[in-house]
C-alpha cells in the first residue's frame, strides 16, 4: 500500500526526541559499517550455523498498526510451515519483528538495528511505502536484500538492486478500476475524492484519472480531504451536484467507511469505487449497509477457489479466527518467496540471495502467480471485489496490459526517466520521438503519460487489446 502520514503530529517535542534517538542510532551503528560497503560484507558476518535470522520491520503500533499486525501474522504462518518442513538448507529460520511505530523516521533506524545487531540475512517489510523507502535505502547501502510485501508506490524498488516487492504497483491498480468502471460498470462520468495528505491516495487518484480519461471517461470533479478531518460534507455536497455516475475514493478503510455513511445521509446513491486501502473487515463494520454494492480492487479474494487460497484461508482461520485480509496474504507470499529464494541461492550472501529473488518466476502464491520482473516488481493480476451482504465478494480478475508487462526495461533503473528503451518499443511513432534521447527531462509530448516511465501510457494503449496473457 501507499505512503502514509509518518508523524502523529504530537508537537515538536515528540519529533525532537525521535530525531535525537534516530540520529544517535545511525552514528553508533551506521558509522562502523559504512566502510564495509561490499554487499556481501554484512551477510558474511552472520553465523554459519544455528538459525537463519530474517528481519521483519512493520508498523506493530501507531496509526497503521493493523497493517503491520496482519502482515506479521502472514509472515509467521509462512515461517511455521517452512520450519515444520525442515527450514532452509537444513537450518531453521527465525523471524525478528521490530516495530516502526508507523513512522517513516523509524524505518532507517529499525533496519539498521536488524542488520547490525540481529545479523539478518534478508528483510521483509514494510506496508507503508514511505517507511519501505526509508528502510530500503539502508538495506541497499548495507547490501541486504529486502522484500516488501505490500508497498505499491513506484519509488520503492527504484532504490536499487536489493529491493523487491511481491505486490502490484499503484499505476496498475488505477488502471484496473478505470477499466472495470468503463467495461463492466459502463460509466463515463466519475467523481474523485482522495486523501490529500497521503501520497498513496493522491497517486492512486491520479493514476485512475489518467487511465480513465484515456478510456474516454470524464472526471466530473476532484475533491480532497485530510485523513484527520472527519467531516467531508462539503466535498460530498459538490460531488452530489456534479452529476457523477460513480465516485472513486482511493483512501483507507476507516475514512472510506465514515465518508460513505455521510454520503448516503446526504442522499448520494451512486456506487463507490476504491483500491486496496479498503481491504479490512472493518470497512463493512464501519460502513454498514451504506457500503453495500461498492467495488474495490485488491490483491486477492478469499473466495478464490485456487487450492493455495483455500489452504491459506483455512489455516489462517484456524489460527486467528478471522478471514485473512490482503496484507496477511501478501506477508505470507513475501515470506514464502524469500524462503524459496534462500533455498535456491548458492549462499546466503546479499548478492546471491538477490539474484535468486530476481529469478523468481511463476511462483504460485496466495495472491496469484508471481513473477519478479526486471524492475524487481511483481507481475500479477488484480481482483475486483464487491461488498455484498457485508462481505467482499469476488467479481472479476484483471491482468496487466501485455505491452507494459513485456516491455524490456533496464535492470537497474534509479530514476523513472531511465525507461527510454521501453518507450519506443511499447508506444511507437509520434509520441515517443523525444524519448530515446532525453534521459532526465521527459519531452513535453502531447501524450503526458508516455514519457513518465512509459507505463501508464502503454497500459492505456494496451487496454484496447483484449489479450490477457499477463501471467
Amino acid at each position, binding site marked *: 500500500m501507499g505512503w502514509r*502520514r509518518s*508523524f*502523529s*503530529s*504530537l*508537537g515538536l*517535542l*515528540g519529533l525532537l526526541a525521535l530525531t535525537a534517538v534516530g540520529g544517535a542510532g545511525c552514528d553508533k551503528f551506521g558509522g562502523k559499517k559504512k566502510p564495509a560497503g561490499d554487499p556481501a560484507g554484512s551477510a558474511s558476518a552472520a553465523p554459519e550455523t544455528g538459525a537463519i535470522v530474517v528481519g521483519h520491520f512493520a508498523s506493530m*503500533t*501507531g*496509526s497503521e*498498526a*493493523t497493517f503491520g*499486525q496482519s502482515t506479521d501474522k502472514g509472515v509467521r504462518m509462512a515461517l511455521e510451515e517452512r520450519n515444520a518442513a525442515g527450514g532452509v538448507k537444513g537450518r531453521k529460520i527465525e523471524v525478528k519483528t521490530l516495530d516502526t511505530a508507523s513512522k517513516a523516521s523509524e524505518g532507517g533506524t529499525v533496519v539498521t538495528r536488524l542488520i547490525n545487531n540481529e545479523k539478518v540475512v534478508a528483510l521483509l517489510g514494510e506496508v507503508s511505502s514511505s517507511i519501505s523507502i526509508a528502510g530500503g535505502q539502508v538495506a541497499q547501502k548495507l547490501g541486504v536484500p529486502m522484500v516488501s510485501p505490500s508497498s505499491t508506490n513506484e519509488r520503492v524498488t527504484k532504490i536499487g538492486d536489493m529491493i523487491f516487492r511481491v505486490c502490484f504497483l499503484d499505476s496498475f491498480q488505477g488502471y484496473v478500476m478505470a477499466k472495470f468502471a468503463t467495461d463492466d460498470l459502463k460509466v463515463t462520468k466519475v467523481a474523485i475524492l482522495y486523501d*490529500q495528505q497521503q501520497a498513496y491516495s493522491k497517486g492512486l487518484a491520479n493514476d485512475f484519472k489518467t487511465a480513465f480519461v484515456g478510456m474516454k471517461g470524464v472526471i466530473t470533479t476532484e*475533491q*480532497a*480531504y*485530510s*485523513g*484527520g*478531518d*472527519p*467531516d*467531508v*460534507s*462539503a*466535498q460530498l*455536497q*459538490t460531488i452530489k*451536484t456534479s452529476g457523477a455516475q460513480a465516485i472513486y475514493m482511493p483512501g483507507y*478503510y*476507516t*475514512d472510506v*467507511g*465514515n465518508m460513505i*455513511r*455521510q454520503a448516503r*445521509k*446526504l*442522499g448520494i446513491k451512486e456506487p463507490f469505487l476504491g483500491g486496496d486501502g479498503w481491504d479490512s473487515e*472493518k470497512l463493512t*463494520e*464501519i460502513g*454498514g449497509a451504506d457500503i453495500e454494492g461498492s467495488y474495490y480492487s485488491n490483491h486477492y479474494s478469499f473466495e478464490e477457489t485456487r487450492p493455495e487460497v483455500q489452504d491459506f484461508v483455512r489455516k489462517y482461520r484456524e489460527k486467528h479466527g478471522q478471514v485473512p485480509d490482503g496484507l496477511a496474504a501478501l506477508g505470507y507470499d513475501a515470506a514464502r518467496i524469500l524462503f524459496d529464494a534462500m533455498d535456491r541461492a548458492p549462499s546466503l550472501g546479499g548478492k546471491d540471495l538477490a539474484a535468486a529473488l530476481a529469478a523468481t518466476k511463476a511462483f504460485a502464491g496466495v495472491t496469484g502467480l508471481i513473477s519478479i520482473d526486471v524492475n524487481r516488481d511483481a507481475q500479477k493480476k488484480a481482483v475486483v471485489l464487491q461488498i455484498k451482504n457485508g462481505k467482499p465478494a469476488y467479481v472479476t480478475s484483471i491482468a496487466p496490459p501485455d505491452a507494459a508487462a513485456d516491455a524490456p526495461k533496464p535492470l537497474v533503473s534509479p530514476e523513472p526517466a531511465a525507461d527510454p528503451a521501453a518507450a519506443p518499443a511499447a508506444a511507437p511513432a509520434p509520441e515517443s520521438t523525444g524519448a530515446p534521447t532525453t534521459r532526465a527531462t521527459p519531452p513535453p509530448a502531447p501524450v503526458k503519460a508516455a514519457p513518465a516511465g512509459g507505463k501508464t501510457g502503454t497500459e492505456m494503449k494496451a487496454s484496447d487489446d483484449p489479450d490477457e496473457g499477463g501471467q
Partner: protein
Amino acid sequence: MKLGGPVVMLGLLIVQHGFPKFLQTLVNSVALGSLYALIALGYTLVYGVLRFINFAHSDVFAVGAWLSFTFATAFGWVATSSPLWGMPLVLLLVMAACALLGVTIEILAYRPLRKAPRLNVLITAIGVSLFLQNVGQLSSVFGTQPQRMPSLIEDRSLFTIAQVHIRLVDVTVIALALALMMALQWMVFRTRLGRAMRAVSFDEKVASLMGINVNRVVTITFAIGSALAAAGGLLFALKYEGLKQTADATWVLLGLKAFVAAVVGGIGNVRGAVAGALLIGVVEVFGASYLSPHMRDVYVFVILIVVLLLKPSGILGKAVREKV
C-alpha cells in the same frame, strides 16, 4: 454599516449556489463548531485557572469517545436496539469517567508541579498526552483497530427545509452542546463555586488568603473540563461513527482546532471559546464548501493569525496590562 459586507457576501453565496447548499453547509458548520466548543471550553477553563495549556485535553476527548463506544457495546446496544434513555445514560457515565480521569491526571501529574516553571508543566502535559495515546492502543484497553460506534440515537431526518434533511444527530449535537455551555455559563457566573474559580483565576494567592481552597477549585475545574470533553467525545462518536485508535492524528488535529478556537475567542474566556469555536466551524466548512476543500485546515489557522495580529487577546478577550 459594519455588517454590510458580510450580509452582501452571504446574499451572493445564496444566489450563486442556491439556498439548499447554503442551509446544508450552515447545519454542518454549526454542528462541527459545537463539537469544537465543547473541547475548547476545557482548554479555556484550565488556562483561566492555572495559566497553562493542557495538551493532554485532546486525549481526554479521545478517551471520552472511546469510552462511549465501550459503554455502549458493554450494554449490548447496536444500531437500532438502544432504548431512548440509552444515550443520556452513556453520556452521564462517560462524563463521570472522564471527570475522574481529569482529576487523576491533575493530582498525579500537575499538582506536584504547581510551583514549578510553566514549561515543566507544559512538557508534563505532552507526556500525559503520549501516555494516554499509547495506553489507549493496548489491546486490553481500546486496541488499535478502528471501531464502529453503535447508533444510540435513531438515524433519521427530523424535518426537511428546502430539500435539506435536518438530521436528528445534528440537532442532538447542537442542542446538547448548547445546553452544556449554558449550564457552564450559569455555573461560572451564578454560583459560589464559579465565583471561587474566577477568584483563583484573578489571583491565586489572594484567593487562598480569602479562604478559598485553591487545590479543590483546580480539581473541580479539571473535572468539569474533562466532563465537557467527554460529552464532546460521545457526540463526535455519534456523528462520525468510525472511531480511529487513540494515537491517530484525528484527535490531535481536532484538539488543535479547538485550542485555536479558544485562543481566537480569547483564552480564559468562556463565552469567547464558544464564539471562537463557532467561527472556526463556520469558516472551515464554508471555506471547504465554497472555495476549495484542499485548504480547509489553512482557513482555520489563517483566522488564528489574523486574530493574533489584529486583536492578540482574542475576539472576546480583554487586553491585560502587565503590572510593572
